[in-house]
């Protein structure tokens, strides 16, 4: 017998409700959504997919900056948001168009942000601005979830991040902090298989990402992130626990179908076969198959959804593009009141405009 035992085997099973072919494998976790609600969910999914795709064209034609597509991660983010309340707070990374939009960020603001204007991060929804430094912001969600407990507010927080983030020191600190301070927070780790060119199995030797939470004493679960029903079921339960001061770590298994960003070429580091195989688990396709079996989905319905989406997207893009930029803005928001040296520099710039 060795003195130091082998690390206990960690369960790598995951929760699934819909199989990739759209058949139900766990009746007990089916949402109680009626036909109208199911249609609405599908419609939102289509809008999100098309709003995301729109960026490719905007970026190519110089109308937007670099953009990270979230194609393939729709079900994870949508299920998570459906499982929380509007007055809960979300802390996105940078690939969270679906989560932000569904949580109330106007589409127009999302376009404006990626077009390169800070006003795109100024809106009413309970969603923090995009956080680009990988792994840094889950700590903020821990802090806000901690405040909610201290203030006896019934809200929770959710941070969104991906596999790469679980290598950053700040993320381990967040995992450790959350249960210590009994933060009302949910970690939504979207394991999309890749961090730019680095596959998850090169990111860590851990068998799952969920098991990283074990060391911090965090409740954790693994779920099929391309299955919106499973994701919704898990999100609801996680939110319930978080509301009782029990933070939860969710590892949602999904896939980044697109390039890392508009300036990346995934052909350099992964095979076409892998991408094609991943497409068979496309979350939209899965929901569509389920709805088709229920006679809810028809090609006409899909077309209707697409047309409605495109109209909304055009309107949002137009509004973002019509937003004028003001040079004063680059000075005016560093402090509550502009400092004398900055005020002087602001005047200096005026001479060159």
């Amino acid at each position: 017998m060795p003195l130091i035992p082998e690390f206990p085997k960690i369960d790598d099973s995951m929760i699934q409700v819909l199989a990739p072919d759209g058949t139900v494998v766990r009746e007990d976790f089916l949402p109680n959504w009626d036909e109208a609600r199911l249609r609405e969910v599908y419609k939102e999914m289509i809008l999100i997919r098309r709003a995301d795709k729109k960026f490719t064209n905007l970026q190519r034609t110089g109308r937007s900056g670099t953009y990270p597509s979230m194609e393939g991660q729709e079900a994870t983010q949508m299920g998570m948001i459906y499982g929380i309340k509007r007055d809960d707070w979300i802390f996105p990374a940078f690939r969270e168009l679906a989560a932000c939009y569904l949580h109330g960020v106007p589409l127009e603001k999302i376009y404006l942000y990626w077009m390169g204007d800070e006003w795109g991060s100024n809106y009413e929804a309970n969603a923090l601005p995009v956080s680009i430094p990988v792994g840094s912001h889950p700590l903020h969600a821990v802090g806000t979830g901690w405040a909610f407990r201290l203030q006896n507010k019934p809200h929770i927080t959710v941070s969104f991040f991906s596999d790469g983030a679980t290598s950053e020191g700040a993320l381990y600190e967040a995992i450790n902090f959350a249960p210590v301070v009994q933060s009302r927070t949910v970690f939504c780790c979207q394991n999309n298989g890749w961090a730019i060119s680095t596959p998850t199995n090169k990111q860590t030797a851990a068998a799952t990402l969920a098991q990283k939470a074990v060391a911090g004493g965090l409740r954790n679960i693994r779920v099929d992130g391309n299955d919106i029903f499973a994701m919704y079921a898990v999100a609801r339960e996680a939110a319930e626990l978080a509301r009782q001061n029990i933070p939860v770590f969710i590892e949602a298994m999904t896939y980044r179908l697109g390039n890392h960003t508009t300036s990346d070429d995934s052909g350099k580091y992964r095979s076409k076969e892998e991408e094609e195989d991943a497409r068979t688990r496309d979350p939209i396709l899965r929901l569509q198959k389920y709805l088709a079996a229920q006679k809810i989905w028809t090609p006409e319905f899909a077309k209707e959804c697409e047309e409605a989406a495109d109209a909304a997207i055009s309107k949002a893009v137009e509004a973002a593009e019509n937003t004028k930029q003001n040079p004063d803005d680059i000075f005016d928001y560093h402090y509550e009141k502009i400092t004398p040296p900055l005020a002087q520099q602001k005047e200096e710039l005026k001479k060159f405009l």
Partner: protein
Amino acid sequence: MPQRTIAEALNQALFLEMERDPSVMIMGEDVGIDGGVFRITDGLIKKFGEERVVDTPLAEAGIIGSAIGLAMAGMRPVCEMQFDGFVYPAFDQIVNHAARMRNRSRGKYTCPIVIRFPYCGGVRALEHHSESAETYYIHTPGLRVVCPSTPYDAKGLMLAAIRDPDPVIFQEPKKYYRNIKEEVPDEDYTVEIGKARVMIPGEHVTVIGWGAMIPLILKVHPHFAQKGINLEVIDLRTLSPLDTPTILESVQKTGRCVIVQEAPRTLGLAAEISAQIMENAVQFLQAPVQRVTGFDIIPPLLKLEEWNLPDEKRVIAGIESILE
């Protein structure tokens, strides 16, 4: 001689030094098969394998912290930080350990690490991808800070940096990775760290810059030459230690000096240069030293970015202001 870009020159320097010295290794996020997001390490993994070109986990403190250990054990890690704004998770390791190990151990341990990363704005990038933060590193005793502006210097300084016995911060002007070409010899050569270069001699105004500001200064040079005003253009190349003698010699000749810096104004390197001139050459000055800099603001997102970056108009105005 072959024409090369800064990106190609850097790639060649890494290649040559890895071939020459088996202790040199590359570490960073996506530096392997992807060749780094700017392709500076392209092809190296093919030639040298995964043990010498390491796709690390996504953890900057992990990269620099473990590089410190590698270096103390005799390896020569060249670490890529993916962007200027993502060095900060490693700041603790850089400032508290890499920079201090030699002094702390009175020379017993050293950290010969190169920490290289793209810097500067003007490339329509996202937040944290357009920073000019050299001051943090210049202000840290124990670090050398290098910032080439040309392909020739990029290669020579990189070879010098890897061979340097101390940690070197190596800032690469990302805006000019691929759009400046010049003759770069295939052979091994170094450019001495700590030596500025007088790029264009002139007698009327000394104009000092580094990295991404050099192409801008070169652009305004003809504007003044046409009027019979000859700018002496100095490319610092090394930001720490500062080549004060070259600066003073020039200012003694011209009596006028403008420093062009992309970084925020307050406590930027331009301020230090100005102080050096004040302390050592004030008697030669015919006009106050002038700074043309970025404002004391966070680099704005891309639609507003141009308003912050020094441009031709601002550099010309800065020079004209001390000509009267």
